């Protein structure tokens, strides 16, 4: 029976063509071909003043983007889940945005810095895991979820409400802690105690219970394994980012979020700011007090910032360069803009952005 192999080859080929063609170019739009960041913004600091234990590689500001996309993406899902069931969420488009943006940020650093093997492996691990998760979800939602989903797509069952809350809690958690520390296990009994067994949309309820139970079980198990693996292969990450400003802003009291460690003879100051999610508000406060940044985590090269802005926002400034934009698929009219600015211009850029009608999504503090 030679017909089947030939037909299969044809169909797989057609499917690949359709998949690749489908809206490909509108999901991640690079600002230009290859590296769009000026070369002199991509040089490791030869003589950092920051103490060695606080220094992180300069290319990591770019490489943390794919990692953070895996926070932005669940955040978008959680947001979407407030008004719709997640059955209609465009999972596969997010998979594409993840890998495309990884490609774009890698284009920026590949010629300027040595290959950061450990970080790339980490990105591949979480990227592939997420791809598998999203693909399974997309598959399940297409084959089963679509058939039980209410026609208006709204949240009608306890289970979909449970899902919305769980997704939101999860996002709030991973903004500050690694995902695998999330307590999936305790949600399993909650899934059954917080929802009724019988009720309207019975099939939908069964389908969601099955799907949520599967998700929680797998994530609890996988999270446990990753926790073991991470402990074995990576050191506990520092929860702080060291910053050097040309002078500690007068009248800026050392608060809980900014720790003034040291002042150097030239008047510059070494500060400890919180890392990750809380870095941005702390750094913004400093900038607004007029601080000029000299080093962040030991680097004076480019730092990546993403903002959520309306479709029409087209900023131009010598202080920063656009790297790429991504439409927010569930919020037509809104886009994510990734831009870079040298650390020396960081305060200026932040002050500029604060004056615009946009929201800074994240500062990628290496």
């Amino acid at each position, binding site marked *: *029976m030679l*017909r*089947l*192999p030939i*037909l*299969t080859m044809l*169909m*797989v080929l*057609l*499917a690949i063509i*359709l*998949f690749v063609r*489908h809206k490909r170019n509108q999901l991640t739009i690079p600002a230009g071909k290859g590296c769009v960041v000026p070369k002199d913004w991509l040089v490791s600091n030869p003589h950092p003043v920051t103490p060695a234990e606080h220094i992180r590689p300069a290319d990591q500001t770019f490489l943390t983007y794919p990692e953070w996309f895996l926070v932005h993406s669940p955040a978008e899902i959680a947001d979407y889940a407030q008004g719709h069931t997640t059955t209609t969420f465009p999972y596969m488009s997010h998979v594409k945005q993840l890998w495309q943006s990884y490609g774009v940020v890698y284009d920026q650093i590949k010629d300027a810095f040595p290959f950061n093997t450990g970080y790339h492996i980490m990105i591949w691990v979480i990227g592939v895991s997420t791809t598998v998760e999203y693909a399974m979800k997309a598959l399940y939602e*297409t*084959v089963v979820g679509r*058939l039980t989903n209410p026609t208006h797509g709204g949240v009608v069952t306890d289970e979909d409400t449970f899902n919305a809350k769980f997704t939101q809690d999860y996002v709030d958690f991973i903004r500050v802690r690694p995902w695998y520390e999330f307590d999936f296990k305790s949600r399993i009994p909650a899934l059954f105690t917080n929802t009724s067994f019988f009720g309207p949309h019975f099939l939908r309820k069964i389908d969601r219970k*099955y799907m949520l*139970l*599967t998700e929680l*079980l*797998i994530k609890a198990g996988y999270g446990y394994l990753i926790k073991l693996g991470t402990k074995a292969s990576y050191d506990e990450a520092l929860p702080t980012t060291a910053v050097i400003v040309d002078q500690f802003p007068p009248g800026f009291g050392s608060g809980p979020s900014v720790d003034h460690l040291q002042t150097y003879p030239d008047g510059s100051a070494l500060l400890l700011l919180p890392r990750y999610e809380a870095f941005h508000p702390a750094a913004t406060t400093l900038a607004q007090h007029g601080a000029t940044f000299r080093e962040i985590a030991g680097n004076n090269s480019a730092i990546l910032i993403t903002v959520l802005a309306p479709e029409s926002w087209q900023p131009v400034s010598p202080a920063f360069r656009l790297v790429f934009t991504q439409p927010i698929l569930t919020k037509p009219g809104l886009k994510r803009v990734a831009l870079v600015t040298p650390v020396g211009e960081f305060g200026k850029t932040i002050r500029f952005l604060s004056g615009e009608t946009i929201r800074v999504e994240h500062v990628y503090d290496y």
Partner: protein
Amino acid sequence: MRLKDKLPLSYLLFTTRGRINRSAYWLVSAFIWSTFYVLHTLLRDFVGEGATYCLYPLLLGSLVATATKRLHDTNRSGYWLLVVLVPVLGPLWLIYQLGFRKGTPQQNGFGTVPNEAADYLKNDRGQSIPHRPTAERIINDVTQLNPVVVAKVFRPTSIAHLQERLRTTTGPISVGGGRFSMGGQTASQQSLHIDMRELNQIISFSKENRLITVQTGIRWCDIQRFIDPHDLSIKIMQTYANFTVGGALSVNCHGRYMGHGPLILSVRAIEVVLANGTLVRASRTENPALFYGAIGGYNGLGIMVTAELDLEDNVAVRREHQKLDRLTYRPFFVESIRDNPDAVFHNGDMYPPSFTNMRAVTWVKTTQKPTVKKRLMPLRESYPLERYFLWAFTETAFGKWRREHIVDPLLYLAHPIHWRNYEAGYDVAELEPRSRKKRTYVLQEYFVPIWHFESFSEQMSEIFNRYQVNVINVSVRHALPDSGSLLAWAREEVFAFVVYYKQRTHAVEKNKVAIWTRELIDAVLSVGGTYYLPYQVHATPDQFHRAYPNAQTLFALKQELDPAFRFRNVFWDTYYHPTVTEPRSLPQHTTNYE
């Protein structure tokens, strides 16, 4: 025609019957999902979201159908699909079962092993004639070159049943079993055709004495299945196991066995139903004339209904081979194969078109573990590679050169070890072309006293090249002398030249074959050899009698035992012209030597 053959794809996608193996499951899954994705995308983009819902019955239906077939392969019912309802573990278990677990190696409650045939290739039970609502049937052999219209087909289910029929009727009778002879030896025009394939019982078996008695409608493969668990093997048979014992006895066949020869050497006794319906036992001591006349006697004297056969141990055999020049073959054979007690099978393949190079292949006894797990040869539904090679060797430029210098060296890289029963269990299906309508594959065979090996090879190769015969293979085997059958083809120690060739089926081509065949027969007679009789009856009566000097003795015996000339077939119709019976016109296609 089975639904499976007619609608392979819809059978695969939308029925839950049968089994599929892992690779077929992966392939069909790729097909289902990619097709769903393509149709889903197209419908959504060009018709609308709602239109995609029409795909779901097809998607779910085909997923369930193919998964059920795959579960069947591991002998589980399709209801096991419900396991998917158990979160996490259910789907994981199913993925393993469907995608990775091997099917049960034998036939199970849901069917035969995928891609394996349920049985050896069989000939039909006689084709009816379109628009002729009579009992007449066309009896043909595997080559499809020898259609003969018989008056009626009769299938006895017991020996008594057969005796009864012979007692109560008069008129011509032809007898057939597997029908793998290639010259109408199983049919005669307007005869009563007796299809022996239902007389297929094993009558007695003794493991200690290594002896089995069977009804002759049984096939060699059926005997193999029966004796294999007892670690026994057939002593002498031909390479292909599709044939019935009765047919093999009638032509006194041979195989590739060393230290043996014609089949008669392994037969202790036979029982024969004569033309008047009486049952007679014959052995070397009891009715020896009947014993020697019936075996290899092309069903002229009576119908052999039982046979007592010697068995041997089923041993493991390892393949050894060497390529050599035709001139060095006989010395090599005499030196290292002929008296080697470990040699079980041997044949020498001559490479066309020059026939100067040979590959000697010997299977020798070994104590090593067989390299194939199966004890009996698994049967396949199709033999695409074999079919391709046969086509390529016979139809493409340099096909024969590629076979000798590329394909065969690769095929012979391995050193397989088989059980003797495995190596004796080939299925004729591997030789079957897609169609025999315009071209067909045919056998002939010539027996040459071993000292004349070189001179006959020389003459043969000259004739083949002069007539541009599309020879696929000449396989040389060895046989010890016959113990006395009247139509003995091995009256002394001989080499058998088994010629497998391809011919077109139109009349001119058939005639051309007849001409070079007669030339080849003259060549073999010139070195004191013979040609083999189960093939097309191209030899002139003169050639026949020169090749088989004892034929007259057999004819006299037939006159005595079958005075009314009841037992007929194309062979007897061609060469036997008794005076006592009313003259019968010869079948048309036997007149082509005139």
